[in-house]
């Protein structure tokens, strides 16, 4: 993990508020693994104050790193308007990663909306290892405008299964409907291959994926998002309730957790709040 300055090389709009931020000078990120993230902040004064946690989309060995983001607030709006040459500070790579692709497992990569990056990178890693045929990407969003980088993913040679809530692209419905369909497909095929699920997206989608995996007894990993200020286990802002300990931290224990570890969070934490308690 390093703290360094990088520059925006290219800022490519993908429509629908999505954009790919290509940075140069990210040599310290070489060797980053799918699921890892950076804390990023531009030269934008005092407001917004905190750096943004962003999952890595792709990292090259020549110091280029790609991030995918969607405009949702002030920070991402400023990022989206940052022209090439803009300076940004980067802290990373941070956090853990998804399990590596393996020749004896089929990985179902389940992405919801802007939760795509770690799964895109996982697919890229599978393709690099010659294991693209052992992974499937299940990718869902509200409309076709929420499904981005499809050409790039087809280029990885990975099977792509799409779902949109309005039916404008792929299956009409949620990505979890597509997941159930793919699991049914694998059951019908009576394959003896082991299945594994990896997912990133909105919290409600992740719990739904986790429940499906639990009901089918399939190994499942969820990449969580949470508000965080530091990214290095100091602010303790990104706590999530967990099975084996009262709280785990998305930044240093995650962001990738076995679903069984964090599904407790779906039923909410039960400690008594210390109202107004401060650090």
């Amino acid at each position, binding site marked *: 993990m390093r703290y360094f300055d990088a520059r925006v090389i290219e800022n490519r709009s993908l429509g629908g508020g999505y954009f790919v931020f290509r940075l140069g000078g990210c040599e310290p990120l070489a060797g980053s693994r799918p699921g890892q993230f950076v804390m990023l902040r531009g030269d934008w004064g005092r407001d917004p104050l*905190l750096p943004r946690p962003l999952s890595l989309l792709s990292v090259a060995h020549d110091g280029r790193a790609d991030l995918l983001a969607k405009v949702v607030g002030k920070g991402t709006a400023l990022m989206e308007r940052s022209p090439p040459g803009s300076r940004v500070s980067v802290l990373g790579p941070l956090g853990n990663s998804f399990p590596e692709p393996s020749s004896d497992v089929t990985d179902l990569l389940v992405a919801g909306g802007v939760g795509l990056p770690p799964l895109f990178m996982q697919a890229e890693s599978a393709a690099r290892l010659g294991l693209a045929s052992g992974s499937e990407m299940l990718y869902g969003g509200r409309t076709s405008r929420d499904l981005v980088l499809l050409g790039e993913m087809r280029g990885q040679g990975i099977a792509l299964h799409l779902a949109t809530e309005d039916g404008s692209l792929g299956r009409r419905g949620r990505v979890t409907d597509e997941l159930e369909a793919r699991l049914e497909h694998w059951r019908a095929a009576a394959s003896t291959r082991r299945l594994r699920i990896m997912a990133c997206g909105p919290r409600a989608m992740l719990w739904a994926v986790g429940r499906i995996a639990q009901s089918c007894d399939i190994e499942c990993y969820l990449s969580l998002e*949470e508000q965080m200020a530091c990214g290095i286990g*100091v602010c303790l802002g990104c706590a999530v309730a967990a099975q084996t300990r*009262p709280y785990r931290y998305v930044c240093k224990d995650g962001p990738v957790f076995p679903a069984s570890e964090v599904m407790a969070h779906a039923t909410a*934490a*039960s400690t008594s709040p210390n109202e*107004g308690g*401060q*650090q």
Partner: protein
Amino acid sequence: MSSSLDTREAAGAPALLTNCGGIGFHNPVLTASGTFGYGQEFDALCSLRSLGGLVTKGISPSPRLGNPPPRICETAAGMLNSIGLENVGVEAFAREKLPFLRACGTRVLVNFFGTTFDEYVDCGARLAALDGVDGLEMNVSCPNIKAGGIEFGRDPSVLSDLVKACRAVIRKPLWVKLTPNTSDIVALARACADNGADAVSIINTITGMAIDVRTRRPKIATVFGGLSGPAIKPVALRMVYQVYRAKIGIPICGIGGIQDGNDAIEFLLAGASCVQVGTQSFVDPASAERIIREMEDYCRAQGVIDVRELVGGLAISQ
């Protein structure tokens, strides 16, 4: 330390050496409790040796789990937190965190608290007995569970008793970090000074809240949280100045929204002998080191030979 100072003085560099509340610092910049972990987390990101000192996460007699999430949210030029004073407890601190701190090359103040009088006294005494602890900073913004959860630090008479009781068992420098959630910061500071505290740290976070209009829910689980960051600097500065002007007899460590060298200089001019950098360490993990350099640059540009001459140097026309 002395040889490097000699070298700098010989080269005409301004002296940043200072003293606050019974502790000598090689510069006036410390890092604030709750924003710098137990020091080790920042080892790869900034030179701990370059800091004046660091203040640890608040320690209680036993480990605490903290509050349910969401625990933080960003606000205009600041952030709210309600972590719930999560920490490893005295024993694990001594065993797991202190060995690193002992060798880190900077002054170490341990922030501590309890939920009862006895816990404060017990915790303070145990921490003060540890080798490698240069001083203690008492966090009095903790709810008193025996008094309906009202913070210890809001009532000058409760605070007087607490400081007196802790002072009696703590043989090391004892600072008290005051809450700004009061109508009379001077009364609180005086309660500390009159009962043997060596310094006051001003200010802790300001109570606030934020609402998500889409869900109509509070943005943090406990509804209220502590506001920090540049948004609170004017309030912090005003309180430091009020206490300095009241001549309570002990020095002040200024805290609240410091982002750069000029911010730190403002606190010195208002009357602080040293400062703590808090939320800015989240924004820029190497900021404390940069702030020290910027203070040095300011002194050089302004012909200030000794940083201590700035303390209370606010110029007010009569």
